[in-house]
């Protein structure tokens, strides 16, 4: 494996009597597009929240590009971009103003921010709507804007928590193309999704977690082959005993 961008060692998170994460260990290489799959409540978002510094683990360690997420949260926040599950945008700001706000929160240089804003808005098809209030956007447009806010500062590592949920097929494919471009730029991407075809199409490797434990890890083809099924969705059903769409 190449140099690791993310190293997770024996990570556990307990909420009272519930183990949201149970001794999770995992490594993600630099430039890898890694899919984190699992039923609702399996521990995907908990894992991402710990890696972003939003949650403290009960035990275990996690490092981003060698920086401990608990000990060096400021450094980690400079390296990562996170597209959170909620469509979190300021509705009273225009699309461009939302982008500029988060660029400034990342202390971007004005010229760099302008260039990056123009580029991302164009790539995700929001250039023409950039001056409209974000509150007037459709659901798919808001999700695309949310993705731009996560990536405005050109992070080395991006956590994308269900970035294509509730998107129409056109928007979803636009995002897929964009993620493929990011991969070509050697960005490390962690993708959680409920769409198995999305994971199969995009991910170099996937990890399936259930009840906070990693129950499968490998490339989509390896997992399909190991489980002697036709596709990743069948792998998922076979391993978790649940249909992911029914869970959502």
């Amino acid at each position: 494996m190449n140099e690791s961008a993310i190293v997770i060692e024996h990570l556990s998170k307990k909420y009272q009597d519930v183990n949201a994460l149970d001794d999770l260990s995992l490594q993600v290489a630099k430039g890898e597009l890694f899919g984190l799959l699992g039923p609702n409540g399996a521990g995907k978002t908990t894992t991402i929240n710990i890696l972003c510094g939003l949650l403290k683990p009960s035990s275990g360690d996690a490092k981003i590009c060698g920086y401990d997420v608990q000990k060096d949260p400021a450094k980690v926040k400079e390296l990562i971009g996170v597209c959170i599950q909620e469509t979190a945008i300021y509705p009273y700001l225009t699309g461009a103003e939302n982008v500029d706000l988060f660029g400034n929160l990342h202390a971007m240089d004005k010229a760099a921010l302008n260039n990056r804003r123009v580029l991302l808005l164009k790539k995700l098809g929001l250039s023409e709507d950039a001056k409209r209030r974000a509150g007037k956007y459709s659901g798919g447009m808001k999700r695309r804007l949310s993705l731009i806010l996560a990536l405005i500062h050109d992070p080395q590592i991006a956590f994308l928590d269900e970035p294509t949920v509730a998107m129409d097929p056109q928007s979803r494919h636009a995002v897929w193309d964009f993620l493929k471009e990011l991969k070509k730029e050697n960005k490390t991407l962690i993708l959680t999704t409920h769409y198995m075809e999305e994971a199969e199409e995009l991910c170099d490797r996937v990890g399936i977690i259930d009840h906070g434990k990693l129950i499968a890890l490998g490339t989509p083809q390896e997992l399909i082959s190991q489980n002697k099924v036709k596709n990743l969705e069948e792998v998922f059903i076979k391993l978790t005993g649940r249909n992911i769409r029914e869970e959502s």
Partner: protein
Amino acid sequence: MKAQRILALTKKELKKTIREPAVLFMIFLFPIVFVFAFGASFGGAGSSQAVYNIGVVNADSSGSNPASSQLLLNALIDTKILNLQVYADNQTAQTDLSQGKIQAVMVIPSSFSQSLTSYQAAPNNPAQWINATISLYLDKGSLVATQAVPPIIQKTLTAVAGQNQQAPASPFHLETASLVEVNAPSALDFIAPGMFTFASIFLIMMVGQSFAQDRENGMMKRIRITPTTPTEFMASQVISYMGIALIQAALVFVMTYALGFKPDVGVPAYAFAFILVLVFSLSNVGFGLITATIAKSPGAATGISFLFVLPQLFLGTFVGASLSSGAQVAGKFVPSYYVTDALTSLFLRGAALTSPTILLDFVAVSVSCVAILAVGIMLYARYYKI
């Protein structure tokens, strides 16, 4: 700490205030509309049974028959409405009047006893009377005092002289000295200082709603993922709401000025008033944060905010002047009381910026507002990450 982040968040907050119709109404229009409505309702004098503190400078006490002026003072005490405080000289009494410690100063002239004796000796022969003028200086910051105190003194004076109520003349002339010097104050003059305080109070609701909403829709989480520090974030919020408070105060000032509120004070006094309102806004941000800590949703924040809005509003602004004496004592536990008191002393009583009352009010506002803001930040940070 990066100014770029603070500036970006501050701009965002100000854009929200301008672009969200509900916020715009609540922050700017509602206080103005409410002040007009309340101003009209409270235009007349209150019917409070409060006791007024009256300073007495008795020049007559050194005269030949001091018992005469003492008769008047005893009669005034017997009214149970006036609480007399005797001063050795007019200057000391005026100082206390300008700082709101007393509501009026009555100066009994040295000729009072002689005047009373002359009247009682020949009640029907004005040519034999020795005239005496009792000067009365009233607290121009108290609508109730200016309207209630002179008739009480006049009536008591008449009774002490043994004068028939219907008598067309007497040797005693009660001159309301301070009111002679200026135009008669309007109801607006009395409520204007409280208006400055009033406008900013609704920031509590806006801060509570804003934090609860940003938490609910994931914006707080999104900001926490950026390198923005809690200090930068809170600084941006405090600066934003102080800016809004400044705009509110300016709007209220322009409005009241246009309506005729033109206190005879200099630029430093106006500057001090704006500084006081700025400092006061800190407490509203603090109360807003406490509201946001308790509230689970923006809707709940609206309701909970009234727990803090109403006491500040009713006990500490122009509304409080017409409340019972008990409620006025309770007002001393809310920061808005000290803001209104300082502004009243400054604009209406003509107190100097360096006078003890103004300075003490400023210290009370500063200490309480910073403490409330600190408690708000600590509580919010304890239950929700910033």
